[in-house]
């Protein structure tokens, strides 16, 4: 396990070295936070609630959304397709490391940097605008929230690793990945709470894994779920993790048998 923590540390240092890219990424996140803060504030002006969210719940959702975007969606799995296309994957296959675990720890370093930064941004915004955050009333909510974000992180990793594996079959995975990430962010509730959408669309989205990335953990935090909804949510998250683990492993094995190590 030590070697993976070493990989984590190496990528942490690399992440902090590429400062301009890091700041631009964080700036993007901050602009999204600012624009949605103002949008919801404008919508809540002169009324006590909007779509079932009172002011503090909506503000908490927006701030939590920013933190979860930094944690869940921060990833370096986009590099996998390039590593396959340019034959660099061969180097990893020859090393005494499990590529799957290797990429997970590489992702963790990216996530941890972004998480720290996102928390700082949220604190700055909270102090600047004197925001009223709705903290959980029941201490056990913190444990459930932690569990939900661990599930969300694993779920996103599986999805994005699977998309990275497209590199085995095509050198043109950039466009499909762009489409995948956009669709996922919107359907995860990473821009707005999904229960703002029409009921039919909400039900359709519930059939997908994406709501369990941001929307579900934030609903856990806001204590908007009944015990049965909590159980169903965690069961769905677990189901998707299990199903996607199997599918991703199958795609990875298929891809490896197809891999010609071109470019290495």
């Amino acid at each position, binding site marked *: 396990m030590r070697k993976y923590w070493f990989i984590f540390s190496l990528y942490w240092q690399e992440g902090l070295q590429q400062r*301009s*890219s890091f*700041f*631009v990424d964080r*700036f*993007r996140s901050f*602009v*999204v936070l*600012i*624009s949605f803060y*103002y*949008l919801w*504030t*404008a*919508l809540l002006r002169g009324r006590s609630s*909007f*779509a079932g969210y009172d002011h503090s719940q909506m503000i908490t959702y927006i701030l939590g959304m920013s933190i979860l975007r930094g944690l869940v969606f921060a990833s370096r799995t986009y590099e996998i397709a390039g590593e396959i296309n340019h034959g660099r994957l061969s180097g990893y296959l020859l090393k005494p490391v499990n590529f799957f675990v290797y990429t997970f720890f590489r992702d963790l370093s990216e996530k941890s940097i972004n998480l720290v930064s996102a928390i700082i941004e949220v604190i700055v915004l909270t102090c600047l605008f004197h925001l009223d955050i709705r903290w959980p009333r029941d201490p056990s909510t913190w444990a459930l929230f932690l569990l939900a974000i661990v599930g969300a992180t694993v779920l996103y990793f599986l999805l994005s690793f699977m998309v990275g594996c497209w590199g085995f079959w*095509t*050198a*043109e*995975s*950039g*466009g*499909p*990945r*762009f*489409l995948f990430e*956009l*669709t996922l962010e*919107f359907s995860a509730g990473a*821009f*707005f709470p999904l229960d*703002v*959408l*029409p009921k039919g*669309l909400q039900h359709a989205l519930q059939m997908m894994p994406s709501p369990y990335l941001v929307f579900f953990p934030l609903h856990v935090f806001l204590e908007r779920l009944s015990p049965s909804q909590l159980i169903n949510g965690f069961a769905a998250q677990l189901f998707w993790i299990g199903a996607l683990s199997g599918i991703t492993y199958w795609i990875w094995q298929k891809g490896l048998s197809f891999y010609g190590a071109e470019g290495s």
Partner: protein
Amino acid sequence: MRYLRIWYRLALNSYGVQASSPLSSFGYLLGKLVRITFFLVFLSAIFKHTSALAGYSLEEAALFFLTFNLVDILAQLFFRGIYGIRSMIREGDFDYFLIQPVNILYRVSFNMIDFLDVVTVIPVFVITYYVLRHIPGGINGHRLLLYILLTLNGLLIAFAIHIVVASFAVLTQEMENTIWIYRDLMTLGRFPADIYDAPMRGILTFVIPIAVMTSFPAKAYLGKLGSGWIWHAFFVSTISIILSLWFWGFSTRRYTSVSS
């Protein structure tokens, strides 16, 4: 005429590059369309819970969003070349362009024409036309002309910002990410500028004129922009272009070649 031929040739080259990776291009194209669709769905969903956003109806709020898209997409379509300025400098292409008998700013700006945006902008035009028809009063010739002029004015300001970004790249051979900061700031123009509080609105009107680029055309069409602000918009674009061209001249005069 010669410059039109050059543009046509560069456009053909760009088309060749994008057509050589059809799957990737298709993914990007679909992604751009999906993003616009999602935001329109989101806007319409918001209006299921309220009748107004900062005093604007659904059609009016959609007009702001579509105007933002028009300026953003057209800027990407025409000035995409600026995005690659740093690699042009690093790989020596910039030096090669300098000895070509063509204006260097023109050559750099139109080096890449994003055909995916040609396809993306068509549905945006169609939806904008649909929305304009559904705004009370329908399509009004005088206001439409003002809307088009102010949208083109917004595009001119976007061009000035692109020139400043290119100038910084020539001057420092760095700042590769500056253009993305501009793109991120542009997203603040997705919604009517009236949703922001006074200090933020002031910044978006006078410091980084995103509101002038995206909100002013829509407000003018809705008859909610005073003539003083219309003159302000044209003043901002004129000053921006003059200053950016001066800065471009300043930067290129100090360029001493780095790679060829």
